[in-house]
C-alpha cells in the first residue's frame, strides 16, 4: 500500500505524533555551515534532560576522552554535529511513546529492548563495514520498527489481532499484519518518517529492512539494519512481537561484503554493549 492510500484508508495524518520542535530546530541548524557549537549549545541547554544525555554520551567509554567533559559546547565539538542531531532524534522519538505498558500482547519494554539491540547491532556492523556515520546507524536501527508503536497507539484492535495471529500461526509479524490489515509496519513507519521529515538515509531502513533489494539509494544502510534486526532477534534481546526468525536476505549479505567469521565478533560485541545501551536509552 502506498502512502496516499494508507493515509486515506487508515490514518488521519493529523493525528500522527509530531516530533518536538527542538528536533527540527537542531536538524535545521546543523545543516547550516555558519552555525557554531555555541549556537547549538544555547538551544540544547534549554532542555535539561537532553543536556544530561549529551554529557553522559560524551563521557561514555565509547568516546574515550582523556578527561571529563563538562560544558555543552565542548561536548558538541567532540561528538560532532551529525551525532548531535541523531541524539536529539533518538530522544525526541523516544519521548513520544510509552516505555512499559501496551495492549495485552504487546510489551513496550521488550519491544524497545529489541530495538536497542538492533541499534547497537547496526552501529557495530557499520564499524565492520568501515562506514563512518555510526550514530546515524544506531538511530536507524533503533527506529526501524517505529511503525509498530504507531500501530499499537492508533490501531490497537487490529494490530493486536495481527500479533496474536503471528503467534498462533508461527509466522513473522509482517505476514500477519498484511493478512489482517492489508499493510504492515514498514508502510506505517514510512508514513511517520515522512511526516517527521527524517533524512532518506534513516527513512529507507525503516521502509525496507524486510526487503533490502527494493531500497533506492541507501542499500548498504538498509542491509546493515536488516542484518542487525535478525541478529537482535537471534540473540533474543527483547522481543518485537514474534517468536519466529526471519532469514538473512541474500542481496543484503552480498551488499555488506562481510566474511562469515565477522558474525561471531559482531554478535559478541552486541552482547557486550547491549546493557549499557539499554540503560542509556531507557533512563
Amino acid at each position, binding site marked *: 500500500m502506498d502512502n496516499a492510500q494508507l493515509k486515506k484508508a487508515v490514518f488521519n495524518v493529523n493525528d500522527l505524533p509530531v516530533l518536538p520542535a527542538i528536533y527540527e530546530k537542531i536538524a535545521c541548524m546543523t545543516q547550516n555551515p555558519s552555525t557554531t557549537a555555541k549556537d547549538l549549545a544555547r538551544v540544547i541547554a534549554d532542555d535539561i534532560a537532553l543536556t544530561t544525555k549529551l554529557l553522559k554520551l560524551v563521557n561514555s567509554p565509547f568516546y574515550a576522552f582523556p578527561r571529563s567533559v563538562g560544558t555543552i559546547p565542548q561536548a558538541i565539538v567532540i561528538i560532532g554535529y551529525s551525532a548531535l542531531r541523531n541524539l536529539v532524534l533518538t530522544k525526541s522519538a523516544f519521548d513520544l511513546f510509552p516505555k512499559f505498558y501496551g495492549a495485552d500482547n504487546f510489551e513496550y519494554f521488550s519491544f524497545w529492548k529489541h530495538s536497542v539491540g538492533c541499534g547497537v547491532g547496526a552501529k557495530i556492523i557499520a564499524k565492520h563495514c568501515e562506514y563512518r556515520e555510526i550514530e546515524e546507524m544506531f538511530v536507524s536501527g533503533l527506529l526501524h520498527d517505529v511503525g509498530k508503536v504507531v500501530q499499537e497507539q492508533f490501531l490497537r484492535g487490529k494490530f493486536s489481532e495481527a500479533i496474536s495471529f503471528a503467534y498462533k500461526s508461527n509466522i513473522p509479524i509482517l505476514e500477519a499484519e498484511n493478512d489482517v490489515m492489508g499493510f504492515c509496519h514498514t508502510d506505517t513507519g514510512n508514513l511517520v518518517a515522512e511526516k517527521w521529515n527524517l533524512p532518506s538515509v534513516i527513512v529507507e531502513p525503516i521502509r525496507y529492512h524486510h526487503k533490502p533489494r527494493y531500497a533506492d539509494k541507501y542499500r548498504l544502510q538498509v542491509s546493515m539494519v536488516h542484518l542487525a534486526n*535478525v*541478529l537482535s532477534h*537471534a*540473540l533474543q534481546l527483547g522481543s518485537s512481537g514474534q517468536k*519466529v*526468525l526471519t*532469514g*538473512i536476505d541474500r542481496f543484503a*549479505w552480498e551488499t555488506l561484503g562481510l*566474511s*562469515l*567469521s*565477522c*558474525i*561471531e*565478533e559482531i*554478535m*559478541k560485541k552486541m*552482547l557486550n554493549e547491549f546493557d549499557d545501551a539499554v540503560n542509556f536509552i531507557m533512563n
Partner: protein
Amino acid sequence: MGVLNISDLIPGMVLEEDVVTDKETMLLPKGIELTERHLEIMKTWGVNEASVEGVSRAEVVWEKMGRIGEEDRAKIMAEVEMLFSGFEDDEVMNEIARVVTKIKIDRALSSNTH
C-alpha cells in the same frame, strides 16, 4: 579441514592454509603448529580467521557441548532448533545458529561453575 574464527583457535592446531592479511601480506605459512605468539600476531594484524587441519567450525561447538550436562544440552538444542528451523540450508543463518549455540553453552558453563 575448515576455517575457524580466531576465538576458536588454540595453540597446537596446525595451519592448513597460509595466513595472510587483507593487504595480502604473508603472516604465517601453512603447515606450522600455532602458538600463543602466533595468535597474538594474527590479532594485531586484524586477521579474524584461519584454516586449520582436522577440525571444523561445527566441531568446535560439538566439543563444547560435551562439557555441559545432559539436561542443559537438550534444552539448548531444542531452543536453537525452534528458533532456526527452516534455515538449515542457509550458510549465514547456520553460522548465526552456531554462534547462538556457543553463547548458550558458555552461559550454561559459567552458571554451573558459580
